Every structure is written in C-alpha cells, then in structure tokens.
C-alpha cells in the first residue's frame, strides 16, 4: 500500500525504506532528483544500515525544526561512513 506522500529509498542491498516526502526533502539532492516523480530512488552505493540512519536523521531534522530539541545519537562505528553519505546527499 503506497500512500500518496511517500517515497521509497532503496539501498545497495535492495532494502527498501519508505518515508514521507517531507522527510526526504530534507536532502536537497533527493528533492532535486527526477525520480521523485516516480516515487522511488535507488542508492546502489549506500548500505542499508547507513540509509536507515539517514532516514532517522530526516525525521529527527523535521522534529527539530518544529521545536522539539532532542539529541541525535550516532553509534561511533557508523560515523565514518555516515560522514560520506550526507556529503553525497547534501544533507
């Protein structure tokens, strides 16, 4: 069941993450991709773990901008890879 305002992000291992469009728009790059029309974007170079964290980040960013100021916790093992992805995604 695909609801209207959602997009699907597909990781390297072909794991699918379905998130709200608003959340996805936090990344300007994803926002610009034409595939938004279709509703799904593939990231063959980003692993599922990282992609998952990124999705969490999107939601956290939305919450933060709406005033809920919490912390975003990052597991230290993920940090290095996690740094590359936002660079790629302009987040």
């Amino acid at each position, binding site marked *: 069941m695909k609801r209207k305002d959602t997009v699907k992000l597909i990781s390297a291992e072909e794991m699918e993450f379905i998130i709200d469009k608003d959340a996805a728009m936090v990344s300007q790059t994803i926002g610009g*991709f034409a595939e938004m029309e279709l509703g799904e974007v593939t990231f063959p170079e980003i692993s599922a773990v990282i992609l998952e964290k990124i999705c969490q980040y999107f939601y956290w960013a939305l919450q933060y901008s709406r005033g809920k100021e919490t912390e975003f916790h990052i597991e230290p093992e993920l940090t290095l890879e996690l740094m590359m992805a936002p660079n790629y995604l302009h987040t």
Partner: protein
Amino acid sequence: MSAQKKKAFQIEAFKHRVVVDPKYAEKTWKILEHAIHEIYNHNASGLSFEELYRNAYNMVLHKFGEKLYSGLVTTMTSHLKEISNSIEAAQGGLFLDELNRKWAEHNKALQMIRDILMYMDRTFIPNTHKTPVHELGLNLWRDVVIHFHAIQSRLQAILLENVRRERSGEVIDRGLMRSITKMLMDLGPSVYQDDFEKHFLEVSADFYRLESQEFIESCDCGEYLKKAERRLNEEIERVSHYLDTRSEVKITNVVETEMIESHMHRLVQMENSGLINMIVDEKFEDLGRMYCLFRQVSNGLVLIRDVMTSFIRDTGKQLITDPERLKDPVDFVQHLLDLKDKYDKIITSAFRNDKTFQNALNSSFEYFINLNSRSPEFISLFVDDKLRKGLRGVTEEDVELVLDKVMMLFRYLQEKDVFEKYYKQHLAKRLLSGKSVSDDAERSLIVKLKTECGYQFTSKLEGMFTDMKTSQDTMQGFHASHGSDIGDGPMLSVQVLTTGSWPTQPITTCNLPAEILGICEKFRNYYLGTHTGRRLSWQTNMGTADLKATFGKGQKHELNVSTYQMCVLMLFNDADRLSYKEIEQVTEIPTSDLKRCLQSLACVKGKNVLRKEPMSKDIADTDTFLFNDKYTSKFFKVKIGTVAAQRESEPENQETRQRVEEDRKPQIEAAIVRIMKARRVLDHNNIVAEVTKQLQSRFLPNPVVIKKRIESLIEREFLERDKGDRKLYRYLA
C-alpha cells in the same frame, strides 16, 4: 567523538567502487555527456538521475572536476550554437516565438543539468572560483545566442518595431514581449539595458519628438495636453504589461521631455488657447491637466506661475487705474473681491491648492492694490456700504463670509493706518446716524481687526461703541429726572462722545434756535452735575433733527434733517422769504456747509421743501429762499439728511493724507528710539531696515522720512552721530 573502550573500532573498507580504471574519468564523462545530449533533445525521461548524480559526484571526488567542468562548457556551447542557428533560420514573425520557445527549453535543461551537477556546484566551483552552473548557463546563452550578431540586431529591431506598431494603434502579442524582456532581464540588468532599453529610449525620444511637432502644429493647447496625457498613460501601461518596472521612470521622462518640456513656452503662450485664455475662460479641467503634466518637468510650474502672476498684475493694474471703476468705490472693491474669488477657485480646483501659487496670487494682489493710494479709503467705503445696507437680511454665516473677505483685502494693504483713519470716520457717521444694519456685524469686524493688528488698532474704535452705550444710559437717567419738565417742548436725545476716541472734527459755529437752547442747557446742567471736571461742546455738524411740517394744503410731513438744516428751516417759522445773506448772518453756519445744506433743501427733486430764486443748481450769495408751500411727497416721513459717506473730493483726500503723514512721524520716532535703546550703536542702513520691519504691520515708512526723523532726534539730543563714522549712530541715555 567519545572514546568507547567497549567495542573496538572497525573501519571497513569504503563501499564505493575504488578507482582502478584509468579511463574511468573518460568513461564517466561520456555518460554525462550523453545525458546532456539527451536532455537537450528532450529525452530526459529515460535517465536515472541518481546514477548521473553519482557519476558527477565521483568525478569531482576523484579530482576530475576540471574535466567535468570544461566538458560541460564545451557541450553546452555546441548545443547552443545549434539552437542559435535554428532561431536565425526562423522567418519574420516566428523569430520571437522561436527564440522564446528555445529559451524556455534551455532553462528547463539547465535546471536538470544543475541538479545533476549539484555536487560540483557545491564543492568544486567555490574552490576554484569558477562560475556556478546556472549562471554559466545564462552566460553561455547570452554570449552564444543573444550576442550572436545576426540574432542580436534582429532581436532589437523586432522588439522596437513591435513597440512602434503598438504606438500606431496595432495590437501586438504582449505576452511574448513580456517573456522576451524577462529573458533579457534574467540574463543580467546590463543586458536588458544595453540590448534593449537604451535603444528603446532613443527610438521613443525620436518618435515623440516627431509626434509632438506634428501635434503642436495642428492642435490647440487643450487638445495637445490631452494627447500628451494619453501618450503618457499609454507608456505607463506598456511598462506594466511587458517592460521592467524600472523603465517606467525613464520612459515617462522621455515623453515628458519631448512632449512637454521642449514645447513648454509655446504651449503656454499659444494664441487663443494658451494659459491666459484658459484662466479667463475658467477651463478647470484643462488647467488641471496642464498643472499635472508641467509638474513633472523642471521649471514647468515656475513657468505657469510666472505667466499667471504677470497676468494677474496686469489685470489688477488695469482695474486700479480704470477711471470708470474708480468712480464707484463699492463697485471697485466688489470687483477686486470677484477677481480674488476667481483665482482662488482656479488654484483650488485646477492647481491642487499649491502653496506656491497661493503665495504668487497674494503677492500679486498686494502689488497692485497698493498701486492705488486710495485703496484703503475705498475698502473702508465698501465696508461702510455693507454695514449700512448691503448686509440687511443676510444670514450670520454669510455676514461672516463677507467680513472675512474684507479682512483678506485689508491684509494686502500696506498703509493700514490710512484705512484706520477712514474707517473711524465712517464708523462715526454710522453710529451717530444709527444707520448700521447690525451691531453684531460691526463688533465682529472690530474683533477681526483686533486679531489681525493688535489691541492698539481697535482701542479707539471700541471706545466709540462704549460711548454710544454710556450715552443711552445717560439719556435714561436724564429723562427719568427731567421727564416731567419737558412736556410739550422738543425731545432731546444726546450722545456724549469722548474726544480722543472719535475722529476729530473742527468746532463750527452754529446758532441754535431758541426753542432748542433751553433743553440743551438743561441737559448740560444734568450731565455736569453727575460728571464734574468735564467740558461739553455741542457738535452741531453731526446732529440730526425730526421736524413736523405743515404745508399749503394742510399736508403734514415729518422731515428728518441735519442740525444745520433744522436751524435754517426754523427760521422760516417767522419769515416766508429769506435771502442767503440773512440766513448766513443769523445761523452763523460756515459757508461751504451752509451752501451744501441749502442745496439739499432746495435743489433736490422730491426733497425741495424750500424754493430757490433763481432756480439754478448751485447756491450763489445772491439767492433768495422761500418756503415751498406746494411741496408734496408720497411718504409721510421724508429724509433730507446729508448723504452717507462719500468718497472724498481731491482736496479732502489731500488733507487726510497729510494728517496721516503727521501721525506717522511720532510713530517712526518711537520706533527709532526703541531700536537704538536696545542696540546702543547702529549704522544707518540697519536702522532703516529695523524701523521698516517694526512698522510694516501698519504702513511702509519712507526711508527719506526716516532719515529726517533721525536728524530731528539728533537735534533733540536723543541720538548722536559717531565721531569717526558718519553713518553710525549712538544712543544717548
């Protein structure tokens, strides 16, 4: 990063593909190049953006940003070259259309390319200070397409042609024009200005220069202005529809310069339709239009104002010097008021109450009203007329209106003290003969004068009113105490005037008839009884009397006459016929007054209670007078008193002038002393300036007179001349 000893770090190999292939860059670039081609060929939908983005990302990451960038430039440029060829090939009317379409497509393509190359935009470009992608796209468009000289000149020509067509009344595609100008503006303000606006303004200037020349030969002023206004509005509308808003000011400037400024003088001076004619014919709409249009042009309003001012001055001067007009002072002043009303209306309705115009109007009026030295007298006569009969039955508000108008004229007078003199005389006559229409109106005017000129100006006038009131009370007292005594004798009514307040009159001789003397004495005793230390003298030249007369066939009439006339008529109780000399001897009335009084008794039709031999109009020393038995009149009460205030004859006028000059001398001296006391030392020019400033609310002092007064003060040792500098004066305490 907090060090966590729990888990050991595991740095895994980066999952991105490692560059091994040296031709990697070339391959990646090819992919991107292909993508760009597809985009320009409208095949974008088949591409995966993520992949392209990733490719671009990789290139930059692996230090091939330069290659990517230069490749982009080359590819885009070649595409644009193709595009400009196709645009150039477009025929005639389709040119703009084609250009517009391709521009829209380019924009879309640029957008997509930018999205793909966003990483490069973000990192590589700022580092190397190259132009960002979007801007690059615009610049390339500008250089390759627009500035391609075949296209550039054609574009300009077509745009200007369209404007020209629209100006001649054709309908053009405004939406298309809008897109094109917007494109030019997007490419940079200088592109819009250099490629279009500059030429637009030039061409427009030429166009309007020609058109205005045409119009001015064929139209009159009013029509021309209408056309100019219409064109101006057109241009403003044009800008709002398809030009940059900043062009509005520039194009309106052009229109105004060509249509208005170049022809300003000619328009204003146009025969039969220029400014003067509009004013005379009261064409408010045209005047209003002229005002609005000329306001935008430098010196436009100055021109209108100057022409109007000189016209008002000329008209005013004519009015002032017209001998016909001057014969009737009331009419004269009414004309002045009408003139002022007319111009006020013009300024309010057409010139938006512009203060500078009001000021010009005021100064013009001030100028010509003071050209005629008898203006103060005439204005006073006007007021006199109004307060005697003009304001009868008029509502309070309207009375105020008229008085305010009079005050306005009063303000223009430079010689306010002359006005005061005349006003006093006229007021005295009005009060004493009881001829004022409305006491309230009189008082209201006094109040206005007081507000304008201060207490000093009106103190004597108010004194006159007080005297009248006091006299009433005195009379009541007199009648209460002596009422029984009088019985059948003549009824006396006295007004006691304080000498200082009333205009000075020379005391004249006049022998009152015996019947009157009795009661006069009674009053004198009564008055002096209550007010010791005062001196009373009868002013026989200012009184009136009511006589009951019976004529030939037994008709009775009541005659209202002056005191002099009463003395003369009473003589005929004892004699039927008297010579001039006899009358003069008995009454001892001065010659000129006697002649005037006899004239009104014997020579005026309907009022000739006396007959004169011979029947001439003038009174000669040798005339004889008879009681006119045959006198008839429709009315029971007949008024034969001396007439209301007249404009003075020349000699009288000279006399009044002289008195005014005499009065001014002490005022000037007082001012000089006041100034010197404060300043101690002052030079001649400054004294003159200060004195003039102090006295200008009353009159304009003559510098020669001031000089004389200074010398008189030096003689009387109030001032002295400085030993060293002859022009310096010193105050002597």
